[in-house]
């Protein structure tokens, strides 16, 4: 049974400001919009395309309509089964949820009784023929719009990196998407950095983290002399040593406006690192560097919001960054040394090929959420005993936030005083916003939230073929074992199927031909994608109950209006890093 979590009730709630203000004006809340599902009750997907027909205009127009209408009337007129296939073949809808409840009122809706299921049971829906399909090329163009591949360049036919390259992709559910991804090669130290970032309450924080975190990590890894050299170059106006080589999809943008501000914060960081240096050159510990970088960046985000900026645009930006949040899952690969730093509920999964060719998944990160006993324990220990019941409620931090660790989210970090002060002195947009003004309930002993990552180390072996980094949008639709198997079979392509050898058996040309045709058909779905991440998304969104991609289902899922998409799935962001077994093996042999 899937974990059914909060389903987003108001598709209009995309940015934190708009969604929150929309809700704030709505009293009392009509039951129709409490789509929150009780845990463990399967929901027929047939009920969900409810609004698709009644969605001609902007959502904002639509909701007043619901509010003023009698529920049954809406159902009677607007509910057709436009997703026949989903009705029939899907036992439950892909669980989706809102990771961050935007209003305290919302949390109070979350009574298990109020469930969609009950509303839909009594309803009869008329079945109308399917009118709207995406063709396979259209599906492909949607799936491939954000795909990106990077191959580590070969030098004279010899590849010395343990990373062959990576594929990445993302599929939005929110509009705009709140997930971000980053990938870069460290230029002044060895190694490659890859990360996925899942934003909530808007994309400001995930955007900022995706631009900045790798610089913080890279700087943390730099030896003292290099830091000095860079600082001296800045001081004397000389050209700087480049630190990172980014590998970006054209849609992965950097904010030009904040670039100067971000640089200054980063420079302060390395200046402190220079000052802290005791003179003895010690080996830099990657784990420590990762933890320091995460904490420092979160600290800088918080500080920048407190200090503000004379430029009103920037001032608003740093506040938006600080008041929104983001999880981060970052991998650092250097030779056979793989470190994963995780904050929140994205996940890093290692694909291991066993000797018999089968695939198994090794989890390299722990989710920081209510499903993690150790996290629950940690939170309870960090706060007084009398808060034991309120610190995590309904599997959410203070009853509100699903991830237990995150960047930004100063609402869970700052004191009430500080929050009020910053909001009051902040720009009007901030002041007008109901959400920012709202203080979480039972807020006694902040901070409740940290960006400190949990770092795992893994020494790569030749059987470790790839690493999947993905936001929870993937993991909640697919089991990790399936994820690894699908990627594994994709990457090895033909080779995974045991090569055929005739040796000794009586085989006719006809038999062989039949066998080969069969094998090719099996592989053809793989060949549709040139990108492992795209292939995974195709499965995540389009898998039927037999674990095979169903085009009709895929087409329907992708043709959902953007306001509805969020009900069926979360943003999905995936990076698949492929390792070079030869190089990894060579490392092993050296010892």
């Amino acid at each position, binding site marked *: 049974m899937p974990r059914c979590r909060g389903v987003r009730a108001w598709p209009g709630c995309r940015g934190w400001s708009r969604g929150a203000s929309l809700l704030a004006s709505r009293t009392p809340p009509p039951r129709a919009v409490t789509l929150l599902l009780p845990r463990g009750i399967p929901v027929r997907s047939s009920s969900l395309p409810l609004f698709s027909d009644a969605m001609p205009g902007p959502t904002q127009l639509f909701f007043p309509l619901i509010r003023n209408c009698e529920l049954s009337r809406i159902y009677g007129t607007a509910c057709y089964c436009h997703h026949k296939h989903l009705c029939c073949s899907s036992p439950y809808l892909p669980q989706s949820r809102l990771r961050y409840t935007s209003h305290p009122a919302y949390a109070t809706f979350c009574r298990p009784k109020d469930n969609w299921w009950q509303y839909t049971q009594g309803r009869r829906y008329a079945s109308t023929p399917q009118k709207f399909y995406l063709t396979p090329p259209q599906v492909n163009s949607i799936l491939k719009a954000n795909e990106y591949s990077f191959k580590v360049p070969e030098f004279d036919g010899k590849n010395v990196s343990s990373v062959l390259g990576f594929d990445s992709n993302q599929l939005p559910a929110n509009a705009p998407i709140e997930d971000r991804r980053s990938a870069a090669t460290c230029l002044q130290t060895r190694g490659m950095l890859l990360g996925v970032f899942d934003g909530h309450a808007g994309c400001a924080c995930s955007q900022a983290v995706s631009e900045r975190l790798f610089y913080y990590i890279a700087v943390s890894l730099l030896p003292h002399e290099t830091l000095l050299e860079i600082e001296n170059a800045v001081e004397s106006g000389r050209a700087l040593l480049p630190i990172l080589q980014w590998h970006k999809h054209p849609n992965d943008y950097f904010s030009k406006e904040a670039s100067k501000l971000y640089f200054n914060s980063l420079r302060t960081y390395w200046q402190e690192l220079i000052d802290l240096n005791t003179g003895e050159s010690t080996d830099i510990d990657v784990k420590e560097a990762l933890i320091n970088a995460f904490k420092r960046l979160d600290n800088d985000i918080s500080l920048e919001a407190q200090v503000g900026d004379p430029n009103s645009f920037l001032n608003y930006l740093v506040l938006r960054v600080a008041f929104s949040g983001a999880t981060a899952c970052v991998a650092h690969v250097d030779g056979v040394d793989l470190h994963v730093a995780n904050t929140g509920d994205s996940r890093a999964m290692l694909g291991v090929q066993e000797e018999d060719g089968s695939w198994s998944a090794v989890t390299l990160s722990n989710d920081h959420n209510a499903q993690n006993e150790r996290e629950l324990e940690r939170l309870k220990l960090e706060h007084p005993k009398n808060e034991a019941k309120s610190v995590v409620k309904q599997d959410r931090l203070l009853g509100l936030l699903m991830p237990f660790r995150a960047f930004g989210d100063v609402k869970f970090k700052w004191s009430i005083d500080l929050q009020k002060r910053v909001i009051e002195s902040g720009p009007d947009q901030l002041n007008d916003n109901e959400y920012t003004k709202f203080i979480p309930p039972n807020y006694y002993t902040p901070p409740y939230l940290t960006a400190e990552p949990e770092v795992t180390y893994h020494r790569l072996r030749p059987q470790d073929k790839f690493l999947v980094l993905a936001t929870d949008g993937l993991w909640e639709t697919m089991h990790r074992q399936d994820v690894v198997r699908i990627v594994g079979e994709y990457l090895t392509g033909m080779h995974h199927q045991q*090569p055929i050898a005739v040796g000794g058996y009586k085989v006719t*040309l006809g038999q062989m031909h039949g066998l080969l045709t069969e094998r090719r058909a099996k592989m053809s779905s793989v060949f549709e994608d040139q990108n492992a991440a795209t292939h995974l998304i195709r499965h995540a969104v389009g898998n039927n109950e037999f674990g095979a991609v169903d085009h009709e289902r895929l087409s329907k899922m992708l043709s959902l209006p953007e306001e509805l998409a969020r009900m069926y799935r979360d943003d999905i962001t995936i990076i698949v890093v492929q390792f070079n077994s030869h190089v990894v093996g060579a490392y092993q042999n050296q010892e």
Partner: protein
Amino acid sequence: MFYWLLSVVRRQRIRRGWQKWSSARSGASVAEAHSVALPTQAQVVICGGGIMGTSVAYHLSKMGWKDIVLLEQGRLAAGSTRFCAGILSTARHLTIEQKMADYSNKLYHQLEQETGIQTGVQIYDRTSVLHVIVKKGQVTGVETDKGQIQCQYFVNCAGQWAYELGLSNEEPVSIPLHACEHFYLLTRPLETPLQSNTPTIVDTDGRIYIRNWQGGILSGGFEKNPKPIFTEGKNQLEIQNLQEDWDHFEPLLSSLLRRMPQLETLEIMKLVNCPETFTPDMRCIMGESPSVQGYFVLAGMNSAGLSFGGGAGKYLAEWMMHGYPSENVWELDLKRFGALQSSRTFLRHRVMEVMPLLYDLKVPRWDFQTGRQLRTSPLYDRLDAQGARWMEKHGFERPKYFVPPDKDLLALEQSKTFYKPDWFDIVESEVKCCKEAVCVIDMSSFTKFEITSTGDQALEILQYLFSNDLDVPVGHIVHTGMLNEGGGYENDCSIARLSKRSFFMISPTDQQVHCWAWLKKHMPQDSNLLLEDVTWKYTALNLIGPRAVDVLSELSYAPMTPDHFPSLFCKEMSVGYANGIRVMSMTHTGEPGFMLYIPIEYALHVYNEVMSVGQKYGIRNAGYYALRSLRIEKFFAFWGQDLNTLTTPLECGRESWVKLEKGMDFIGRDALLQQKQNGVYKRFTMFILDDHDTDLDLWPWWGEPIYRNGQYVGKTTSSAYSYTLERHVCLGFVHNFSEDTGEEQVVTTDFINRGEYEIDIAGHRFQAKAKLYPVASLVTHKRRKDDVELSDLHGK
């Protein structure tokens, strides 16, 4: 068949055939040579005991050289020679390939009778060549894992390993080739075993070949998605253990069963993986290294080793013995490549395109798509943005034509045709613009050398190497041939005398390696004589057309009329802001205009100035196809296409470019004197097709047979549509074969003029008029000012 060849070489006969695998492998028939000490000295050392190495050895010994050592790192006739499918096909694309295959075919039959002849070739197997010892640019010996052998000649017949072996030298010899996996299937016999005379079938649509093998079949093919292998270089052992890859073979198996469904019940014996070697242009590689004398190469057979083995070995043996082969082998010459084709990445990518091409329809004017944009002019991006479509020569991108913004061409695949191509109208407007206004063509790819000396050394050596008289006043340009002893063209170039002691030489693009090697070989070691390759230093713009004069004089504030700037004249002057531009009054087309040789840093400036000033004269970009049409209708022969090492100036009406009495000897003079006395045996002739319908008939390209009074007399070497004559023009050589004996006889002007000619295009003969001189109406006349009309005001 190669076994016969080997057996002759080894004075021992092994029965051929697959059933003898094991015996070949056991090496029972090979003397246990590896235990025997190597000789310390030999005239020739051949590396590679495959069909190529043994064929070279056989021919050398047959021609009289007795001191030959053949080294093989594994067993004799292993590698592709052992595993190859054993098909000899004499239907080849190039004339020279055809000749090699025909010869091989005859030789293999003849060899059956020849066994047991003393050859004097010593064979050592399980001996690896480590590297070749070179002193002062000359081979002196070979270092092997069993010791050193002193030698004068080294022959690299190492097949797939030829590339690695070439690079192992201190002075690397670049031999651009790369291996791809190649699969074929063997089955058990049919119920009624196939007869040994069952014909071999090639189904190019299905990309497969099928032949009888021990009553069953052997079938392989050349798939669309080849698997390059050994990019990093591998040792011999791996070739023995290559995996069968049935999934990769599936498309070929499907097409086999589609063509012959009855074979379904045949039982599989095995799938053989036998790597084949391919070259960047699908032609094999032979000849002497341009940098190391005495270092010969024969490799890169593109899956046709058995077909070419005999002939290729013969030509290489002749080449080693006489300094040149008996046929023109420029198309196969190692010197057509330079170091620039030697990148592993380039080769890996290119052979993936070459291998499928083996069974593809090869259409004229086909450009390779991989391994492009290596050498470009500084104007590349500018021209590309204006619609340039590109072709590549010697790694250099050259514009073919410019697609106007409002025009669409067919997709690459659809544009393949033997008929009128889709660019016809585009080139027409470019040609018209050259005739009526002015066009600019980027011709930077031409090979450019400078020869300077402190005294008269430069003039002296050039006078000796070139047939025309170069002792001309400073500023003059001379068209001249660089001839060999036989009077044939080694190169055809234009030389400008920059000063008393320095010369600027312009040759075709693909002459960069060959011409350099020829000059180096013949130039004395003299520190006062300097040869420099300045190809990369200059961007060349060709301003063609009656208005070129106006554009240039406006840009330079200098009078450019023929009175001030006569034809075939060279002057350094300023163009726009840029100084030191070499302006030459020639266009390589016979049209009026100028070549500008511009130091590259000024290229963009000069181009922009030319285009902006030229606007009011109707200037536009043009490409090589327009140039080609212009030069062919003017009866201009081009080296590499029309001219080669076996054609002399007298055979193509260029007596005026040869100064037999210039007061000193030059290479080829004796041959020309003799030819002048005896007459020529072939004559370069221009044909104008009469009843050819440009829109509906197949076009002539090159290689079409020429008939005189119904008798075959030769083949065309190039052709183009002349937009001025509104006819196709073909150029080609006319021979005079004796009706009785087939022997070649003297060709006189009279013989040419008194014939009725036809050109055979794909089986259809078209009437043609033969001409020995350009059509008079095409000879440029000066444009008169009052000829201007309204249409001249339109932008072209």
